[in-house]
């Protein structure tokens, strides 16, 4: 009997568990990410959906996100704003335009401590791994859609305080106590068991605007990030740092490719996001 045939006698749940372990081992060992999304473990056991509060603008694409920790693995929250993930952690982010999935990005933390990135393009019922150099798609209606290169992925994720941008204390906020209860976090501040981590804001307008900048700019603009005197990342329990609002609005309000911020991943202005920033900053500068 072949190995695959032998699996037929194993209970379904055990097969799921075995698959999860094998996927973790294969990907954590630094094996190349698979050619098809259906081979990455998405939809399998231990995969958990999550949603950050301050989403990165992606030209209006709708996004869904999932995380899977290796069996028994926990996220180390001892640095509240820079969580560390166990070897074998896997994440997915699906991008949909006009209600149809276009791509799903996937990254995995290998045994060597390095993250591997890949993007999968949807074709029918499955998605196929995109070229590492990136690709531009033409969607129905003629809209252009850019798949990131692996270098693009690294540009935003690798230099951040934690390479996982959306699964973080301030991004998950009210969902954090449940993560603690479910045993996904270790070394977290005790207060998080009942009180969601947040930053200090003067009111809802500042909370929304500075949260937006945290989600869209904070992965580069933090202490130790890009060497420009602008700090847009937020810290748990702290108020935001002062900013040059005019500069922020100018760079966020252009799609001149050499001046726009963020510098990659977007061709279209986020008009709602800009309005939110203007509401806060213009109101803030009024006497």
């Amino acid at each position, binding site marked *: 009997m072949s190995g695959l045939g032998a699996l037929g006698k194993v209970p379904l749940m055990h097969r799921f568990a075995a698959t999860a372990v094998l996927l973790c081992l294969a990907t954590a060992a630094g094996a190349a990410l698979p050619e098809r999304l259906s081979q990455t473990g998405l939809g399998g056991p231990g995969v958990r959906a999550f949603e950050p509060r301050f989403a990165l603008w992606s030209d209006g694409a709708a996004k869904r996100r999932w995380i899977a920790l290796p069996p028994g693995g926990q996220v180390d929250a001892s640095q509240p704003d820079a969580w560390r993930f166990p070897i074998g952690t896997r994440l997915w982010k699906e991008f949909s335009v006009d209600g149809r999935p276009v791509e799903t990005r996937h990254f995995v933390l290998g045994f060597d401590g390095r993250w591997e990135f890949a993007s999968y393009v949807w074709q029918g019922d499955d998605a196929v791994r995109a070229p590492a150099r990136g690709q531009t798609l033409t969607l129905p209606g003629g809209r252009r859609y850019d798949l990131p290169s692996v270098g693009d992925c*690294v*540009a935003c994720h690798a230099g951040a305080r934690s390479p996982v941008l959306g699964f973080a204390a301030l991004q998950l906020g009210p969902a954090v106590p449940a993560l603690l209860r479910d045993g996904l976090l270790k070394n977290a501040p005790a207060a998080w068991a009942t009180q969601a981590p947040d930053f200090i804001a003067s009111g809802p307008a500042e909370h929304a605007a500075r949260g937006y900048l945290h989600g869209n700019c904070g992965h580069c603009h933090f202490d130790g990030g890009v060497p420009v005197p602008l700090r847009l990342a937020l810290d748990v329990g702290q108020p935001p740092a002062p900013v040059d609002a005019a500069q922020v609005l100018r760079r966020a309000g252009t799609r001149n490719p050499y001046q726009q911020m963020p*510098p990659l991943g977007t061709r279209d202005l986020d008009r709602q996001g800009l309005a939110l920033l203007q509401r806060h900053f213009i109101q803030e500068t009024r006497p």
Partner: protein
Amino acid sequence: MKALIPVLILLAGTAQAADRIERGQYLVNTSGCRDCHTPLKMGAHGPEPDMARSLSGHPQDFVITAPVAPPQGPWMVVTAQTATAFSGPWGVSFTANLTPDVETGLGRWSENDFVQTIRTGRHLGRGRPVLPPMPIPVYSQMTDDDLKAVFAYLKSLPPIRNKVPEPLAPLAPAHP
């Protein structure tokens, strides 16, 4: 004798740093960095590098506000008089201030920022693309040691305050 060991280690480290700067100077001088990052001025025998502004990039007082219309015929790129600004299908690029001035040059950059910029062809390794005619495809093949040596040399230069403008977008999309 034991007391001399820290001194010897310090001297060895200093010699190593000096070697690295010297190697960086050699690479900068032989890799054409000054051709674009040091502005030209008009001398008695024609255009010559303005060494008072060595490696400080496009002069901030030489203002260019828009790309030029592409010239007729087979031409693609127009170079400014200083050879520090280039108008082409990508818009207008201005050469960077490579001196260690904190506000306008590489003063705040880390060695990794510099290496990643050259390695990835993105500003600071994660920002906008580094534009033509910067020969990223050539320099990105330098070894890490060579790139670090170049950075060490650039950081050893006297800082020159010169705020290079941001690039200008093309008149029309380069790719329809």
